């Protein structure tokens, strides 16, 4: 049976071989001996060898420690909400997207009830306003504008 390391090794091996194949399309300059494919090929070769080593080491391993119990609910939700935030940033603009993100993620991480909703919305509003004022106004760091809102 293949274990966690074996899976990781196979994934790295697949990546190394794909990249090695892609390096065949790179041009070889006529005047200089070393082209753009020279160093990557050495690297991918090393990556493939190390990955293969990891797979073999995993197959040879007699006992594997049981994986610790996993609690991925909040991790998956946070990644999903963050991905939505990143997608919405150029559409809604920094201020609107950030307000929604900070409020949404707070609500998911610790579901509010009753008056705690005001805290959630207050924190989101304060975070957005402070970030905007400090970065755009004070430090002259530009933040994304929304395609849809122009805001």
């Amino acid at each position, binding site marked *: 049976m293949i274990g966690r390391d074996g899976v*990781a090794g196979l994934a790295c091996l697949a990546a*190394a071989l794909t990249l090695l194949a892609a*390096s065949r399309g790179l041009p070889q300059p006529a005047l200089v001996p070393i082209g753009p494919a020279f160093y990557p090929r050495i690297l991918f070769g090393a*990556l493939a060898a190390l990955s293969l080593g990891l797979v073999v080491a995993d197959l040879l391993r007699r006992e594997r420690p049981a994986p610790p119990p996993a609690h991925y609910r909040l991790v998956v939700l946070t990644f999903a909400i963050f991905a939505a935030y990143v997608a919405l940033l150029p559409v809604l603009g920094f201020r609107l997207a950030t307000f929604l993100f900070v409020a949404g993620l707070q609500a998911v991480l610790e579901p509010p009830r009753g008056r705690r909703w005001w805290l959630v919305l207050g924190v989101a509003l304060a975070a957005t306003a402070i970030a905007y004022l400090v970065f755009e106004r004070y430090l002259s760091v530009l933040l994304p504008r929304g395609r849809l809102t122009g805001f």
Partner: protein
Amino acid sequence: MFGALWGSLGEVLQLQYLFPLAVGTLAGLVGGALPGVTITMTIIIVLPFTFGMDPLAGLAAMVGVYVGGESGGLVTASLLGIPGTPSAVATTFDGFPMARRGEPGRAVWLGTWASFIGGVLGAVFLVAATVPLARFALQFGPWEYFSLFVFALSMVAGLTEQSLLKGFLSGAIGLVITVIGTDPIMAVPRFTFGTEFLQSGFQFLPVLIGIFAFAQIMSDLEKMSAGERAARVETPSLAVSHPAVIWEIVSRPFLLVWSTLIGLLIGVLPAIGGSAANVMAYDQAKKFSRHPERFGTGIPEGIIASEASNNANVAGSLVTIMAFGIPGDAVTAVMLGAMIIHGIQPGPLFMTQQPRVAYGIFAAYLLAHPVMMVLQWLLSRVYLRIVRVPKSILVPNILVLCVIGAYALNNVMENVYALLLFGVLGYLLVKFGFPLAPLILGVILGDQIEVNLVRSLMTDADPWLFLTRPISGSMLALSALSVVLALWQHRRQYRRGAPVEAPDADF
């Protein structure tokens, strides 16, 4: 040398530099004290604020975070028994028992004064060693640089506590990330698979922020899902007789100097930082002690060793980045990114080309220590209350600052997409038991390794030169030695029947 430092001290004492330094130090103290927020995370949070600043002001803020962070960790370590940062792990061993015995003030101030003294001793080394080391590095040709980078990478990969293979694989993945995008010789797009997104490659700051921030935050969220609750925080009085505490430290000069030296040495070595220094110094203090059995019961030696070493470690890391351009750990990696944004290239020429910034960093490091003492004295009980801020409020705000940090680099969304991409990758790597330090070092050194390899082979096609040039050959021999040593150590551990698995990401 010390004349230039004197001038820089006067410059950094001006409000425009002292203010960011003090704010950075406070941020470091708070971030260091917050369990689950490491110094790396704090410096990532502070990073976007430095974009709009004068380079020296930005770097002063970062040095403040670094020094403050190393000292902030000791408050939670002593009072709650939870290390606020990995660099305060060993402080919990004796700090917490001492505080529980009814001497919280003694525990916290022993640590703080030891940090201060260790840090100031470290500063002497920083100022004295950087220039000669940079001068030595000026003799380097592409062969030496290539070998130095290979040595740095192999040592970091070898030092990982997890599997050696995974350490090297992680470093290789870091290097692979840097070959994506336009190649440095002919400017040909490589491995972009026809997408515009990959055309310009990945900048290392979004990669670094994504990998470190997400790996840390998501590991915390797992614990939250599992129902782990934050520790209850009490804020006891920290009143203590300072002369007595200082005497307790300086009456143990050997312990103090030895711990400082360990911190410096670990700091100078690339990409391992305070998290290793404090544990190693504690271990050494125990070995040299006449009463090792009393370690862990709340004796001052344990606290002094841990805290003197982790602040001295900052000085060591700063030496490496300023003399060789190689980050001593993840925190200096972020500082390296910040320097590059401001058009400053750290390396052997840094001291001669940018003396104002270089001596400004020395001055900021020196001044951060008294600033840290004052803030600790005024605010330690106040900022300890911030530890109560729930994760549900902290996490979204940290992520927003990560997004600003990545976006504001060049005002393009591509960097934010890279942040998300590497956030997922970093978390997956942690879950699969890969160490992250070699990967980050690979990403930082990748371009330089390629450029120096190609440059040396184009100058002279003879590959034996890497071995026959004395400095280059010695570095390669050292990297081979570090691999052999790591193999031997892992084998020994394996024979003892203790497979080493790091349960958490440790930065």
